[in-house]
């Protein structure tokens, strides 16, 4: 099926060329980082994780959200999702690939990454995260590829694939739970030390992932002869609505616990993020943008009239995507480090090369996604004709 990725129109080649260009710049910046060290980023001993780990955390969510199409289709026989399950699985593959790359570019000694396997340490959550992410990537590769190949041949998928599909459902939940545990088990980082963190992660994942999938479905419909179907998109929209509502609700719970209990350590990071602390407030505009986007999106999504209008829906899901990206991407990871353990406020601003490396990894992800979607859509177009 790979051949289907090689033949395409001018727009397809154009997109690939643009992505390759961004990747090229990213690779050059990474080489610089590789030889100089992570000092080219804005990180410091006080804020020791930043943009890279934030993207990783966010994208684990996008990857996990494939379960939102797989589960209704396979467990509830919800036919409308039949056409797009493979899109969900391919989105998961691209996302996990990005996750792994973001971990890789964040490492101080990337060539030693295999030490995680050579010296397995089950007491470290990172070890488990490594395991579940790799497993999830393999599961989706196998499931996505086999199902699509059967669709191409016009035969039913083999029986042996079923257990893998069922396994992928709890597995998707596990990748985001384990990723939350990276944070939620650390003593002394108050923003992260919350039992609801995994639940928050999953809620925001099931909002942001399907949002991206809706956008992708709309693009696919516009640019190809394959139509994912109105019903599928509307059902995804409902999933986004519920998940985003839960996400905002969970965030509210954090505020209640912090501010009603009045425990300073619990309030500080939230105060820093939304109002600034000791005269520092680099993230305030970001956090309020996220809040505003969430509010607008929820109004448009909860209201059936606006949700059913695909143009408005497109706007709403873009808002959800960026709102959760800011909230989980920047706010959660960076906010966890501020104030630092000695209660000093030391801020973090990503540097230009750091941003370029980040964009480069996103571009790699989109390249994988473009190629996989191209294959899937071509197969579907041919099957339909």
């Amino acid at each position, binding site marked *: 099926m790979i051949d289907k990725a090689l033949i395409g129109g001018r727009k397809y080649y154009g997109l690939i060329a643009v992505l390759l260009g961004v990747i090229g710049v990213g690779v050059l910046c990474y080489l610089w980082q590789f030889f*100089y*060290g*992570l*000092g080219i*980023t*804005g*990180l*410091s*001993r*006080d804020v*020791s*994780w930043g943009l890279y780990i934030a993207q990783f955390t966010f994208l684990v969510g996008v990857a996990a959200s494939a379960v939102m199409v797989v589960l209704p289709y396979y467990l509830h026989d919800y036919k409308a999702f039949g056409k797009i399950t493979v899109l969900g699985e391919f989105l998961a593959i691209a996302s996990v690939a990005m996750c792994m790359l973001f*971990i890789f570019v*964040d*490492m*101080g*000694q*990337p060539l*030693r*990454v295999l*030490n*995680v396997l*050579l*010296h397995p*340490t089950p*007491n*470290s*959550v*990172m*070890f488990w995260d*490594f395991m579940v992410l790799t497993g999830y990537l393999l599961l989706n590769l196998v499931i996505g590829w086999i199902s699509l190949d059967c669709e191409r041949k016009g035969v039913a998928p083999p029986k042996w694939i079923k257990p893998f599909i069922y396994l992928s459902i709890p597995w998707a939940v596990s990748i985001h739970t384990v990723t939350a545990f*990276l*944070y939620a*088990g*650390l*003593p*002394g*980082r108050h923003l992260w030390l919350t039992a609801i963190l995994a639940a928050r992660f999953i809620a925001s994942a099931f909002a942001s992932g399907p949002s991206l999938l809706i956008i992708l479905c709309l693009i696919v419909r516009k640019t190809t002869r394959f139509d994912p179907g109105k019903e599928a998109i509307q059902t995804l929209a409902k999933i986004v609505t519920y998940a985003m509502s839960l996400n905002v609700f969970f965030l509210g719970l954090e505020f209640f616990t912090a501010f009603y209990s009045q425990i300073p*350590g619990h309030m500080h990071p939230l105060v820093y993020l939304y109002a600034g602390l000791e005269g520092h407030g680099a993230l305030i505009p970001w956090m309020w943008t996220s809040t505003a986007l969430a509010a607008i999106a929820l109004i448009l999504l909860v209201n059936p009239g606006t949700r059913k209008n695909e143009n408005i829906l497109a706007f709403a899901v873009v808002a959800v995507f960026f709102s959760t990206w800011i909230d989980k991407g920047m706010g959660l990871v960076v906010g*966890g*480090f501020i104030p*630092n*353990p*000695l*209660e*000093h406020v*030391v801020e973090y601003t990503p540097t230009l090369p750091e941003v370029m490396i980040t964009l480069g990894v996103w571009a790699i992800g989109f390249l994988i996604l473009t190629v996989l979607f191209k294959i899937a859509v071509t197969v579907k177009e041919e099957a339909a004709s």
Partner: protein
Amino acid sequence: MGVNRRDFLKITGLGTLVGVGGKAAADLVFKGQVEAQEARPNEGALVGKRWAMVVDTKKCIEKIHKDGCKDCSIACHTVHNVPDFGNPKDEIKWIWQDTFEHICPNQHHPFTSESLEGAPFLALCNHCDNPPCVRVCPTGATFQRDDGIVLMDFHRCIGCRFCMAGCPYGSRSFNWRDPRPFVQNAREDFPTRMRGVVEKCNFCAERLAEGKPPACVEACKVKALIFGDLEDPHSEVREVLHEHYSLRRKPELGTMPQIYYIV
């Protein structure tokens, strides 16, 4: 009895020396499955069951107020080839001064005694008895010896910095860039680090192995730093802790820090 390289490092205190000859030596000895007799500490080495340090803050504050003393940090950073980048973003530090309210944020209140308010306190790795940094490290590069010392294997560290997020005391630093050009008069008897790995106070494991007390303890002219074995009922640390009221940093986190502050 078989001893692997890690145990060898643990027992001999060579864990911190892996950068120079230690690693090569250990690899030579333990290449393949060479059986070795039980490794013993060096002759004359200081051995303990639970190393700890007590900071007599009265003496320390007095001295700092008098002459801006930095003897302990200078001694430590010199013997351990700690680089000086001259900027806070790249900064690496093993032992340093901050103020009481930052070292012990929960103990501070608006009417803190005048002698403590804004007073300089020392910060260093607590060699926690229940260290979160060890728990989170995905490679075992951060590990705890039987005598309680929390050590780094600079050659195993992948630079993921999970331990920095995990340490609730900000004790750990990262080599954001090649540190070697920033080490003045690098000493041969302790490894310099490469970029991309984490480092922190090692309770002078390499000096204990030679029978010497930690460099900071030796450097302190007013004897404000007391080092010893808490499991030994006759040790000086036990005695002073018995006689004085002492604080630990963030005890509520259950990390069981082993740096005690007499106030």
